[in-house]
């Protein structure tokens, strides 16, 4: 079902990739990690979170981890997600792109100072 577009990468999806770069997490874990890494600025609501997760899974940028013993108990039915190597690569490219933007922004600034 290739229907969702990740090009350009939406900020929410990028934040999720970054959250998963550190550890495998379930949905709520991702939401908290994103809140942490953005200083509380971004709190992903369930709709945005799972919609982004769905797109990322479809594009194979993250994958759902199957429970180790293959059975799902009612107690532990949370789905845990892991960053795929394609996802890691995309996150790296996006970070590099943002770094470029930052560099241009700095260059446009009139930084005076004569180191003479």
């Amino acid at each position, binding site marked *: 079902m290739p229907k969702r577009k990740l090009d350009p990468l939406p900020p929410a999806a990028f934040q999720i990739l970054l959250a998963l770069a550190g550890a495998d997490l379930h*949905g*709520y874990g991702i*939401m908290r990690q994103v809140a942490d890494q953005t200083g509380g600025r971004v709190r992903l*609501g*369930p709709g945005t979170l*799972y919609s982004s997760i769905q797109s990322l899974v479809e594009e194979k940028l993250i994958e759902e981890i199957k429970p180790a013993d293959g059975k799902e108990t009612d107690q532990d039915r949370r789905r845990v997600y892991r960053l795929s190597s394609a996802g890691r690569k995309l996150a790296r490219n996006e970070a590099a792109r943002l770094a470029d933007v930052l560099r241009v922004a700095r260059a446009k600034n009139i*930084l005076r100072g*004569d*180191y003479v």
Partner: protein
Amino acid sequence: MSERVYACLLRLLPAGFRDAYGADALELFRDRSRDERGLFRRLRLWNDLLFDLAISIPREYRLARSTPSGPRASSDFGTIPSFDVLAADRIHPTSLLLGSMLTTLALGALTILSSHVSTRLGEGPSVSSKHSVNARYDPLGAVASPQGSGTSDTPAEKVFKAWLLAFNSADPSAMTAFTKLYDPTGKMGMFISPRFRISTGGFEVLSMTSPQPMSVHFCIKEVNSSTRGLGSIRVNPTATPTVAAFNVDEVPPDAVITEIKLDATERHRVIKGTIETLNEYYVWPAVAQQMAATLLAHERNGDDKAETDGGFFAAMLTAQARSVSHDEHLRVMYKPFKTPESASGGPTPEEVAHYREAMVRNNCTFEEVHILPHNIGYLKFSAFPDVDVCRSTVTKVMKSLRHADAVIFDLRDNHGGDPHMVALMCSYLFDHRTHLNDIYDRHENSTQEFWTSSPIPGNTLANKPAYVLTSADTFSGAEEFSNDLKNLNRATLVGETTAGGAHLVQERRIDEHFSIQVPFGRPINPITKTDWEGTGVAPDVTVKSDAALETAERLAATRVKGLKPESQ
């Protein structure tokens, strides 16, 4: 109860999405409800959820609609006109109604509550306080809503006049109000600082022209002296025009202003002169060749063709060259008056005299020098000015801190200067001659060593704890100061990674209007054998630059108390 409400609201999402993630969304709601207690956090939770649904519902339906129709999409609606629900199970009309009502009610309640809470807690901008700000700051208010002839002002003229009123009012709050409204990115620098207002006495406008609605060229004169400045302001074409670029150059007293209109021949001559200078002097010859190729390619493409304005043409060449080198020290410059060719290639005697006078007036850029609680010396300065001009000021400043138990150098707004001055300032922190830095000159193919001139007679700071405050704006020579002391383990750097400009520059003349500030040399740290071009100098203690002083004060106070156990 609230879980059931949210479960109902979730039914507004398309069935496909709900089947896949509905349970997870509900689980997440439970997790957050468990963790986020108290009125404020609850309100925030519901605010997040409703906002999220308001965005997600239309998006999911849009996505569901664009899905290639599977068996579910071609369901039993047939040809009967109907809502395109695209769901296995239809949304029951009562759910829809209930959902809409609840959303409306919740949003209404939230609005009332949040305004109530923010007024009570005094947080968030309330309308009444905004009004009082405008009412109090007359100068800005007058320009923000121009009357009479003012209504025909272009956006750039409006901002320029607002700046002049705020600056000349000498009222710090008017300046803050101007910055907030028109200059959120801080392009005006010291031109909107109360201190600069005091030293200049304000400005008179001698002339003003508007070549385009978004830019103004002007000539201004300091009230306190005969110093004239020639500058331009460019604003963004936004609803409230904000400053995109601001630039003022001092005009030598006897200069005759002759604005020129560039043609293709003159443009080509400037490009050719720029390329020759870069090839001869730029610190990395291979990069110089790449920049030359880029400048020529832009000229061939006709990218420069329409530019007849000297200042904007210089800015254009600067941007083209920097797009390859990313070297923020490199700058092509234009002056709307003829500059004489001095025999030595260095500054003319008039320029030196002018510089000296400006430094005396600005206290060699030392903005603050005082003793903080716990006997911590603090000095903030915005440049490392020429050592020959400012040596006596530095001696005085450092002498005033001689009884301090620790010292904080605030370089957060420091944009560099003379490497000899960097060495002189460092000298106060050592009791013996110390190798700080080397500078490699590409044109001469030579390396100059920089050492401290320690010990300095009467100095008592050589063994005292030292802290350097840095920000992402700390640039050039200020980065060298930070880098030198960091690598010698002589100071603790507190703040942000610096801007990343290491090269040394000199101004080379292209013709009587144009010159280029060309990076000709690079530092080599004797310990790391590297420089910080493009990377910046990383702090030892990373905090936002706003919090750097507070953090350093705390560190210094702890350290000072530790060193003197007999004091409380």
